[in-house]
């Protein structure tokens, strides 16, 4: 089974983040493979181990995003595709989905795996857009994926529990963090990744143009911040006493 996993490079969620004076996110910071994508890569690798085939990583981003692909290759993915073009800087979700769809279509995968949402954007819009542009069904919020011939079955996480959702390949699956424990890259894997292919595609290679932005950023301002209130050092009783007083005055006791 041919599996495409979409991956993204994001500012390190565990690192300090900063904004430039013009309110764009500072790019000189530590960047990593989106932790959410590691689950998708792991699931792709496990499916390949069970059913055979190939795992191809597809990413869009600056040239530096090659490092994120490289990390996935060292976990065991077979090859990578990096869509990188200056014209794509600041792309919105729809343009991102169009670029990814163009690159993925050429691969004719049976399964496309995405994270539910990225760590930095957190809007979760690219996967449903991508499914639509690829013309395939979407099986989403999966905490378990099973493949039996052409049939794909997922356990879809919901507020109340989960749903069992069935579809058939080709399809797009979004996975949650609960799906699998991502493996560490072995030394052997890291060495092997160096010689694996990473194909670079420009906007022109994909046959799409940038188009007009669907929305314009008018302003970025500080959010209303809450001011710090009282801070107490707990000495064994003062913490509980003060909290009880606050609960009392909020009338929740």
């Amino acid at each position, binding site marked *: 089974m041919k599996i495409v996993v979409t991956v993204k490079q994001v500012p390190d969620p565990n690192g300090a983040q900063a904004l430039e004076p013009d309110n764009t996110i500072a790019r000189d910071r530590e960047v990593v493979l989106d932790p959410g994508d590691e689950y998708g890569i792991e699931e792709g690798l496990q499916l390949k181990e069970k059913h055979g085939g190939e795992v191809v990583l597809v990413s869009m981003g600056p040239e530096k995003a090659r490092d994120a692909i490289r990390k996935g290759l060292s976990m065991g993915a077979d090859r990578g595709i990096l869509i990188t073009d200056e014209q794509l800087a600041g792309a919105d979700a729809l343009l991102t989905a169009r670029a990814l769809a163009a690159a993925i279509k050429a691969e004719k995968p049976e399964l496309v795996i995405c994270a539910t949402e990225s760590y930095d954007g*957190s809007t979760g819009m690219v996967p449903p857009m991508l499914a639509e542009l690829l013309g395939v069904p979407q099986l989403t919020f999966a905490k378990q994926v099973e493949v039996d011939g052409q049939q794909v079955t997922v356990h879809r996480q919901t507020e109340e529990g989960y749903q069992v959702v069935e579809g058939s390949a080709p399809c797009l699956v979004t996975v949650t963090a609960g799906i699998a424990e991502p493996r560490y890259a072995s030394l052997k894997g890291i060495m092997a990744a160096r010689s694996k292919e990473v194909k670079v595609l420009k906007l022109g290679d994909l046959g799409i143009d940038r188009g007009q932005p669907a929305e314009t950023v008018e302003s970025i301002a500080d959010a209303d911040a809450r001011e710090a209130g009282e801070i107490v050092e707990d000495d064994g009783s003062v913490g509980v006493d003060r909290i009880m007083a606050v609960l009392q005055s909020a009338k929740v006791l």
Partner: protein
Amino acid sequence: MANIWVYSEVNEGRPRSIALELLSKARDLGTVDAVALGPGAREAAAELGAHGASRVLVNEDPAFAEYLAEPATDCLAALAGKGAPDLILFGFTSDSREVAGRLAARLGVGLISNAMDVVAADGSFRVTVPYFGGAKVATYRSNTSPAIVLVRPKSFEASEIGGQAEVVEIDAAIGEGSRRARIVERREEAAEQVKLEDARVVVSGGRGLGGPENFHLVEELAAALGGAAGASRAIVDAGWVPYAMQVGQTGKTVRPGVYIAAGISGAMQHTVGMKSAKVIVAINKDAEAPILKMADLGVVGDALKILPRLTDAVKARKGQ
């Protein structure tokens, strides 16, 4: 007057509460139609009308409830071709966002996700969205018609104005090949306790609890206060507690009377989901934790020691 649609999910004959919140806002922006699809849509119409929908466009085809995203996308796309709405509002829920994403891609129009507010701006709309984890607010202006906006639950207060909607039967317009991602079974996991979104008191735990074996301390305090337990993304990702408990940008937004954060550092991912609580109490060992800078009461101390004593004190006060 702008022509606005509100997409309403239907559950057992009732609209999801986010739809009522959206109608309460949308009725100030223009003429509002609600779109309700699937079994129970007709029954939901009265409540949608009472919250400001002048018409409710319904179709009760069971496929809308049985298959993910695609049937609803087909119906809305066909409808948009005829009705030319200026704005389509969806709630930022797992089902709606998938429909909205597919619809935007099919219509080739913009989609602004995770919105906190929408206002009219000379023929188009201005939408505010939390940015940089909620420390900043970005204001976008939509350039497409329709504009599609996904709004975070609890951004607006639902209020009735006592209207009555005209119920209009619409064509399901489900494409031949759109019955593909089929829900074959629904399983409920957690026993229904106080709902996180509706709780007057929320007690949430984070990594500072040390391990999943200590999370019961959070649950016991929440139970003693008659509230609900929540969690930071860090411990949900680590598998300590289910996703349904997650508070934050990618989880739930809560606005309780009191929010108690135990062992949560206060990453912006989390605070965007709870900063509208009336009173915030934070317990953290680290005096530098950002959560202490936004709390009404910050206690620098060990949550593992403070939580059980606090639970005892609450029980004693309530005579439990």
